[in-house]
């Protein structure tokens, strides 16, 4: 019996924009069914890393394997098995929610798109908004639609950039519960970039703290809290960010 490769395997990844090292020789993996969080301040390299994993950005050095495939050379082999949500992209505002989800359901080749869309709309509390133009929804509703789109193809790997950034605490909590349930049920892996430490503590099995493009800390949320002698992950994060010695 052969063991499955990890959902994500990154080795020595480098990405520069001019003189800026956005990602600087990072290596990590996301196990199958696991959830890893990328933490870091603005410009730490989280979104750049996610973009490389999605194949939207080509690294300067390093290797990226997603679901066992070389993402740089053969991204087409796995794109139907991954999905994502990010505040840096949007869905066409003039199309209704149902129309947007239908277009993406067809892009992914879903057999029963109508039923899947209605089921996800119910799950994410946007069933009453299915026939409204996406641009007329509140930012919180749009975030939930984006998450519904991200789960359309029931991905084996879900990449989320700030998944609850624009949600009120109640809705954010509801979304986290939904993501937890979905992951437990589907066995999918997740990689989350987030500023919300409570979210990471709750969802992630392990966390990587990025600073100036480098991984400066890694471990389970509990082990990081213990290692730094802090009360919670937010305090760990602030300590790491403000410690000049922690740069590599």
């Amino acid at each position, binding site marked *: 019996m052969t063991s499955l490769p990890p959902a994500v395997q990154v080795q020595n990844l480098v990405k520069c924009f001019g003189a800026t090292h956005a990602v600087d020789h990072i290596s990590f993996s996301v196990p199958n069914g696991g959830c890893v969080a990328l933490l870091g301040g603005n410009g730490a390299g989280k979104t750049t890393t996610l*973009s490389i994993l999605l194949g*939207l950005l080509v690294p300067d050095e390093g290797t990226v394997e997603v679901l066992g495939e070389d993402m740089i050379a053969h991204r*087409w082999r796995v*794109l139907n098995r991954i999905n994502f949500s990010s505040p840096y992209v*949007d869905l066409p505002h003039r199309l209704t929610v149902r129309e947007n989800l239908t277009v993406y359901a067809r892009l*992914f080749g879903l057999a029963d798109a109508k039923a899947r869309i209605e089921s996800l709309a119910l799950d994410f509390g946007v069933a009453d908004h299915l026939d409204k133009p996406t641009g007329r929804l509140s930012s919180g509703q749009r975030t939930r639609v984006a998450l519904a789109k991200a789960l359309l193809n029931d991905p084996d790997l879900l990449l989320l950039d700030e998944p609850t950034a624009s949600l009120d605490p109640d809705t954010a909590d509801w979304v986290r519960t939904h993501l937890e349930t979905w992951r437990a049920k589907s066995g999918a892996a997740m990689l989350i970039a987030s500023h919300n430490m409570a979210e990471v503590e709750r969802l992630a099995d392990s966390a990587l703290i990025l600073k100036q493009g480098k991984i400066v800390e890694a471990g389970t949320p509990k082990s990081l809290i213990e290692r730094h002698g802090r009360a919670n992950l937010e305090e760990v994060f602030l300590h790491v960010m403000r410690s000049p010695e922690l740069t590599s």
Partner: protein
Amino acid sequence: MKSTPAQRIGALVLRHYYLFRGSWPRILEMAYWPTVNMLVWGLVSQFLAESSNWVARSGGVFIAAVLLWDVLFRGNLGVALAFLEEMWSRNLGQLFVSPLRPIELVAAMLVMSLLRTTVGILPAALLAIPFFDFSIFKLGWPLLAFYANLLFFGGVMGLGVSSLVLRFGLGAESLAWVLIFALAPISCVYYPISVLPDWIQPLAWALPPTHVFEGLRAAMMDGRFDTSHFLAALGLNVLYAAGATILFLSVFQVARKKGLLLNVGE
């Protein structure tokens, strides 16, 4: 669960169908300029026919030319606007994390161009019949050859514009409307190529539209379909299409290196 290329191309066409279905002004706008142009050139033709034997003999040649020029212009806009819609709505990043391939996006944009151009030109072509007693459809099969060649070259131009917009951002979007007009003087839309200075004629012959419009005049004035013009336009179109596709795919790779697929939008 795996989508086929046809399903993905169809999904993108459906996305634009949804966009138009929800906006009557967009559909009216597509037909507005071709109709206005047809009316203006139809009236000019009527006036000139009274004092020019050449114009009188070539009844309708200006109307046919303006309709076919609009095919070229709309073909270009059809592709460029389909791409710009994705940029304006910050949807490119979403699309390219789906199984959609760049070449499928190109194919979908060409299909959209065909649909947009046909919807835009057809009313003007039909209105020319009662207004000026001129039916471009009397050209028969040659009309299809002219239409296909101009639509295709318009699409190629639109693909070139899309490449520039992807590379240089939305600051270059006005090229979708203006670049094609740079070719109008040497495409000999309303006059024969012999009018052009000798030194620029080789450049004009290197453009598919020049062959189409020369072919149009031959068909309307001499009643013959000039196969050599048709084949020249077709051959040149294949060359330009290959060039534009290579350009687009190369720029797509540059966009993946520079992170341009995420950082787009209004």
